[in-house]
């Protein structure tokens, strides 16, 4: 069973957080999507593509282990009308140590 908890910094829709708690199938990507879906960011998903993803695995994850995801915005920049958003996530294992680090870069093309 995996659960995602710990709202990332900043405003996030309450129902989104509730859904994450409820959903036993939650994984890292759900946390990233919930974050990117924050209305304060105002991303238009019809223009968003996943440009880059990086993982650093510090140890293998065990079946049945409960993971905690904490995500924050690592950078937001604009270049020639295109927006770049990088979200850095830490996955904590049952022992409380970081088991996996992940970086997701999303691009929003200009309208």
């Amino acid at each position, binding site marked *: 069973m995996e659960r995602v908890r710990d709202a990332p910094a900043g405003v996030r829709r309450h129902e989104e957080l509730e859904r994450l708690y409820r959903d036993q199938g939650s994984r890292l990507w759900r946390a990233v999507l919930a974050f990117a879906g924050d209305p304060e960011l105002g991303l238009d998903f019809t223009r968003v*593509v996943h*440009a*880059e*993803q990086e*993982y650093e*695995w510090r140890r293998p994850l065990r079946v049945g282990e409960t993971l905690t995801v904490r995500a924050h915005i690592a950078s937001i920049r604009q270049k020639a009308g295109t927006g770049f958003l990088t979200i850095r996530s830490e996955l904590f294992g049952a022992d409380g140590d970081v088991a996996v680090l992940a970086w997701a870069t999303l691009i929003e093309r200009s309208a």
Partner: protein
Amino acid sequence: MPAVRVRFEDLAAGDEVPPLSRMVTREDVKRYADASGDHNPLHQNDDVARAVGFPGIIAHGMFTMGQLARCLTDWLGDAGALVRMRAQFRAPVFMGETLVAGGRVRSLDPETRTAALEVWVTVERAGTTEYAIRKSEAEVRLTEGG
């Protein structure tokens, strides 16, 4: 898990990872959407995908990245040996296309028993090779005796 594990001592710069092929089906993409929670209509609804210029739905980049990870861990014989991977998603992948994941050893660090690899995923489309993932890298660490 394969019986044969890659040994650090047997690796050399330029060595190729055996390529792994897999045809992408709607079923794969549906299951990936359910597993990841990514229900973006571009991955589910042909009309939405056509409206932005694709012939139909596209696979999730992370699904393609998963094939790359599998290619590496099948080769290594030890999933724990894969310690880092960075993928740049450069082209969409359509249903019925065959992903071919591969890689090449770029450099070796005997001190940490780590190999740096260049990795990629290609699809053949209309007679040309498109890179779904390119200019990407992975790091594998092979422990003593492994």
